[in-house]
């Protein structure tokens, strides 16, 4: 029994519909030789092993973020010295960058079927909504429950980020919907209260401390995302984690009452990290789709060649159908999964195969 389960565990964990050579958009979870930290023996352990590639890439990313922060600091100082509203301009830019990063991550996650990317995109979008948007709209002195709405949104962002980092989070958990619903309820409540009793509000010190706690949670979630991304060599997790940690650091600097230039520069650096996560992720997702299409095309070509060599003079209706389906795959229609199932399907039991001996069976085995 042990040997049978062992051999099953050692088998490649590919999807049944796709041969091993096909890119399925996911990394294999099986025991890969030569990949430390991802083997079957390393999964249950909590040892923190980082591949040198990931460590080098992380060092490069941190250096680039620091460089961006320095450049942004110089620019923001110049803008501030010129008498322009630096914080508001920066918040507009950061909002635009954050929303575009969220859209890119969401599209790429949708294309590659990644649940984690969808949650990360929701977290980034939520952070852009509750962070720079009120500053951009100049709602800084908003009364009532609006600051509490920002805190609630920040907590939702933390929850989304944590769920995205978790290794095994159930697919049916509607985190994104739940976070959006909570945020919408909080906004509706704040709006209603603001309309009914504009003077009612929470004490400012309490809200500030709650916001600080929520931002501390954001920083913690970002650092843990950095750790998880380093350990599993996931650039998206790593860079988004760096971005959230830098955002939390910017809020901490702002809370400590220093000049306005440093936090604004830090937000710029965080936006740069977000874009550095989103743009390559989008490109790699598009490339993955392209590779998959090429693999299907090559497979269709091979299938057709096998059918031709099986004998074209006695072509049975089933074989003709398979040829038509292979042509359809080659035409890049949306029947990419159908020929595989058709080819792999055994002939009806009890009936003799209409094709000459060996032709469909040979084809279905490849």
């Amino acid at each position, binding site marked *: 029994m042990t040997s049978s389960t062992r051999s099953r565990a050692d088998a490649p964990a590919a999807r049944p519909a796709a041969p091993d050579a096909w890119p399925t958009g996911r990394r294999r979870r099986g025991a890969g030789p030569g990949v430390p930290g991802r083997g079957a023996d390393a999964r249950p352990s909590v040892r923190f092993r980082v591949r040198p590639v990931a460590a080098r890439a992380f060092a490069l990313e941190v250096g680039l973020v620091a460089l961006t922060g320095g450049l942004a600091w110089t620019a923001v100082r110049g803008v*501030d010295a010129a008498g322009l509203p630096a914080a508001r301009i920066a918040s507009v830019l950061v909002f635009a960058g954050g929303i575009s990063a969220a859209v890119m991550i969401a599209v790429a996650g949708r294309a590659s079927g990644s649940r984690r990317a969808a949650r990360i995109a929701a977290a980034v979008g939520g952070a852009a909504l509750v962070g720079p948007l009120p500053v951009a709209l100049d709602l800084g002195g908003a009364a009532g429950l609006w600051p509490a709405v920002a805190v609630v949104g920040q907590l939702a962002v*933390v929850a989304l980020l*944590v769920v995205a980092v*978790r290794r095994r989070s159930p697919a049916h958990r509607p985190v994104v919907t739940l976070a959006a619903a909570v945020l919408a309820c909080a906004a509706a409540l704040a709006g209603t209260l603001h309309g009914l009793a504009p003077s009612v509000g929470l004490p400012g010190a309490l809200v500030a401390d709650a916001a*600080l*706690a929520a931002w*501390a*949670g954001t*920083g*913690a*979630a970002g*650092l*843990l995302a950095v750790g998880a991304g380093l350990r599993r060599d996931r650039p998206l997790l790593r860079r988004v984690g760096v971005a959230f940690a830098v955002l*939390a650091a910017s809020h*901490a600097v702002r*809370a*400590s*009452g*220093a*000049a*306005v*230039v440093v936090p604004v520069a830090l937000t710029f650096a965080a936006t740069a990290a977000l874009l550095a996560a989103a743009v390559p992720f989008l490109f790699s997702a598009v490339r993955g789709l392209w590779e998959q299409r090429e693999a299907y095309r090559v497979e269709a070509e091979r299938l057709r060649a096998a059918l031709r060599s099986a004998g074209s003079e006695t072509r049975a209706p089933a074989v003709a159908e398979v040829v038509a389906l292979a042509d359809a795959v080659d035409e890049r229609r949306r029947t990419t999964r159908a020929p595989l199932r058709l080819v792999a399907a055994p002939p009806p039991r009890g009936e003799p195969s209409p094709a000459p001996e060996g032709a469909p069976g040979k084809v279905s085995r490849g």
Partner: protein
Amino acid sequence: MPAVRGRSGIVCAAPDVVIVSVVIFSVVIAVRDGMRPWVAEVGPGR
């Protein structure tokens, strides 16, 4: 870190996040309160 269930039945889904955020919160509060006299003397910036 896996989820933790307390004696009262409350489940904490991410205890590591809670621990790290409490640490960050304390550090930020300490730095803020430590900087307060300095900021009052130098000025809060713009």
